[in-house]
Every structure is written in structure tokens, then in C-alpha cells.
């Protein structure tokens, strides 16, 4: 006999996975905009002492978002 409760849970998890992936994709786009803005503003205000730190954080964020996306595809 088909377990309807299992089907409901399975549906919820699939929905959660798709939502997470779409959300992650949008977030990658958003972080790319953040990175572009940080880079362009750094060129507006040159030689700022901490520009390197901010740019690095922006790149690291982008890498984390990408890895979260791939991990979500792989394990969920």
C-alpha cells in the first residue's frame, strides 16, 4: 500500500531543495553585484588601506555561495 505520509514528506523535501537552489542562484547574482560595486567604488576612492580586505571578503562570499549551491545539488 502506498504511504501517503511518506509522499508528503518527500514532496516537501523536493520543494525545499528546489527553493534552496533557486534562492542560492539569486544570491550568487546578488553577490556578484556586491563584488562589482565594491571593486568599482574602490577605483573611485583609490589607495584606500582596507580596499584589499573588502574585495577579498566579496570574493570569498561569492565562492561560499557557489559551494553552497553545488553542495545543495549534491547532497540534498
Amino acid at each position: 500500500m502506498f504511504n501517503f505520509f511518506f509522499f508528503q514528506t518527500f514532496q516537501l523535501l523536493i520543494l525545499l531543495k528546489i527553493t534552496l537552489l533557486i534562492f542560492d542562484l539569486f544570491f550568487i547574482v546578488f553577490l556578484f553585484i556586491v563584488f562589482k560595486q565594491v571593486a568599482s567604488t574602490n577605483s573611485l576612492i583609490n589607495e584606500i588601506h582596507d580596499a584589499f580586505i573588502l574585495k577579498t571578503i566579496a570574493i570569498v562570499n561569492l565562492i561560499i555561495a557557489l559551494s553552497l549551491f553545488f553542495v545543495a545539488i549534491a547532497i540534498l
Partner: protein
Amino acid sequence: MERRDKNMPDIFVAKKKNTNPNKSIKQILTIDMPPKTTHHLHLISAFCEYPEHIKFVNQETDEVILLFLRRHFITNLRWIVIGAIFALIPFIFIILANFGTSLIQLPFKYSLMLTLAYYFILLNYFFVNFITWYFNISFVTEKRVVDIDFSGLVYKNLAATKLSLVQDVSYSQTGVIRSIFDYGDVFVQTAGSFENFDFSAVPHPAKVVGIIEDLIGKRGLNV
């Protein structure tokens, strides 16, 4: 006819002014200027006189930055507190799950991914708010006033005006917190249809106004 008795004591004797006719206005102004000691900018600097290691686009080679301004760091307290509260929310869910009162029971890998994504978004909330504060900068140079606006990640504006066009400088400091931490809004009014400048929530507004007023005054004498 003026009569002066040498035996009579003087009630008031005006001090002789130490005027040196050889001293030019320029020399007087140079003496009055604050000492040009450069200051190192750190990550959360909001007020810095003669900052070093910083240049802005279109800066002339002989143009010295006199003042570097940002909003007072205390103005960031709002988003820091909001972020900290949101950082505690997953712990509430963990506590509820331990007591068995959680609404939905998710597999561990799903819970882990959701928690990671949540904290990552929160981290970026902090980061975006920080860079919005960080890139909102105002400069006062020997020649002009420069204001760089950066908000909402997509809005960026650089405005500058010559000091000779500045007509009036004023500041407002209202509220208990502003008085305690000594920060306020500085308004730079320019001549005619030129854009007015508004440095919001900058530290030591009276000092900022004083410096700009000095520059305008001295500029007037130099002309």
C-alpha cells in the same frame, strides 16, 4: 590742544600692537593653519584630519585632503543589534527541537544546509550594511568639498564643489545620543543653483564647520 602731565598716573594704557609690516597675509595664514601631521586611517575611522594612503578619483596632484569624514560608527548599532537578534533565532529552533516541540522534523543534511544558508545570508547582511557605511565618504580638501554617496548597492554618486562657491556652513546636533557621542549633520550651502552638501551624522560637527569656515575665510583673503 592736548595737554599731558607726566606726573599723572595713566588709568588705561593700550597695549602696543606687535605689528610687523614685513609679515604678509599669507605668512599669517600659514602660521594659523593646523600642523600638517598625517593620520593613519583604520577600518572604522569616521573622522580623520590629513588622512594618509587615500586618494579619490579626479584628485589633483597638489590637492591635499584636509578632512576625511564618514557617519559616526555608532550609527551602525541598529543593524548590528538586528543582525545579532537574527543570529540567535536558529538556537531557539534547536532548543524547541530538543524538547520535541518542533513543527517539522527535517533530515539532518537539510537542517544543516538551511542553517548554513541562513548564517551565510546573515553574514552578507552585515557585509552589505558595512560597505554601505564604509563607502559613504566625504572629503574636505584645500580646494573643494567632495561627497561620495553609496546606498542600496546600486546607487553611487560623486559630487564636488569648489570652496570658493561655498556660501554658508552650518550644523545641527539634536538628541541625547548625538550629544553624548558628539556627532551631527553638517550642511554646506553653495552659491546659486549648485548642489548643496549634507554630511549626515559626522563626528565633531562643530570642528568640521570650523575648519570649512576657516578655509572659506582664508580663501577670501587670498583672492
